[in-house]
């Protein structure tokens, strides 16, 4: 298991591994939005939580199809399926590797980009907390979508269509935490819902994804 995590991280950080793809996208989005919306600080502060969360979501979506497609193409997925580690574990590890290479950099970069969007000072802490709690759900749900579409040629569009509706609850509660945090309202309820979505999907979806993989490998 640890060997698989180490391999996936090594692959992501080497040339052409796709690390930085999501981060670059996030950066571009946060830079372009103030240029498109205009420099009015109050408008920017109003939309900042939503933009940051939408950006994080789309950035994480960008690299989803790599989770299983690359291993499927070079035959590693067949060999992993016949290896002594359970396929559920393979899915969980690959989702974790995706989170470390995509979600975690977003969490680190988000406060910096919050400055560009004139995010309210009180919201920075909640932005980090909500992304830290919410982005793992994006990776796990995405791994499930990637498992469903593995083996399909140009499955990226289908993957987006399948995964985006599943991302909506995470987006709503994640952005709500930041919006409430910005104006000093209590954030416990959306934060708990966000944590519940992450915990629930991390507990259940690896099993569903492993089942989908087995069907797709036939």
């Amino acid at each position: 298991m640890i060997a698989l995590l180490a391999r996936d991280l090594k692959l992501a950080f080497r040339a052409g591994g796709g690390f930085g793809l999501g981060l670059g996208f996030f950066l571009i989005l946060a830079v372009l939005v103030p240029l498109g919306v205009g420099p009015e600080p109050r408008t920017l502060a109003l939309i900042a939580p939503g933009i940051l969360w939408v950006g994080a979501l789309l950035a994480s979506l960008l690299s989803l199809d790599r989770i299983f497609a690359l291993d499927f193409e070079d035959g590693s997925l067949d060999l992993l399926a016949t290896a002594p580690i359970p396929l559920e574990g393979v899915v969980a590890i690959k989702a974790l590797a995706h989170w470390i290479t995509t979600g975690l950099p977003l969490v680190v970069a988000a406060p910096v980009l919050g400055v560009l969007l004139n995010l309210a000072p009180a919201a920075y802490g909640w932005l980090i907390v909500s992304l830290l709690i919410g982005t793992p759900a994006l990776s796990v749900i995405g791994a499930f979508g990637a498992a469903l579409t593995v083996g399909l040629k140009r499955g990226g569009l289908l993957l987006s269509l399948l995964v985006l509706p599943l991302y909506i609850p995470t987006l709503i509660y994640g952005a709500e935490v930041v919006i409430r945090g910005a104006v000093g309202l209590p954030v416990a309820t959306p934060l708990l819902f966000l944590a519940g979505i992450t915990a629930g999907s991390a507990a259940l979806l690896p099993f569903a994804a492993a089942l989908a993989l087995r069907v797709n490998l036939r």
Partner: protein
Amino acid sequence: MDLTVTDLTVARGGVPILEGVGFALAPGAALVLRGPNGCGKTTLLRTLAGLQPALSGDISCPPEAIAYAGHADGLKAVLTVAENLEFWAAIHGTHGIDAALSAMNLNDLTDRQAQNLSAGQKRRLGLARLMVTGRPFWLLDEPTVSLDTASVALFGAVVRAHLATGGAALMASHIDLGLSEAAVLDLAPYRAAPRLPQGFDEAFA
């Protein structure tokens, strides 16, 4: 433990292509599967490896005892030869890749990335992976594709060494593998009659 297959029916895309397949593979034995293209050699091997379910029949040996090597070698292009092999050794919980490296004559290539290997060198690395799985039954699908004569001889020696230690090998191939002691099973007689089973719905297979 023997690998005994009785009355096995395998399907590709929901349609049975081989039926009534039966053979036994004892430790120390090698069996070569022959048959025309598309007759179901790969499907049979994937079924035995546990990658797809059989429509009917019994396989005596659990997939955990079987190491499968398909058409693709499962190599990561940006990892070196040693890193690729160490990964599979770690996944299978075995230690030491030196024996596998020297058996497939890969010692001079350990630090080269897999993307810079020739087709034959990749194949040799793919076959070396079998040695680090530590599993007794090897299922090989066209193992000697793109290998030169010297490498085929290396492969033959590796398989013989595996058989000598109580392993067994089942190989699908059209080419002479240089293993004169291997028995041959022709799959042509087992070809399934073209039909769909009663009440069979592929969506729920």
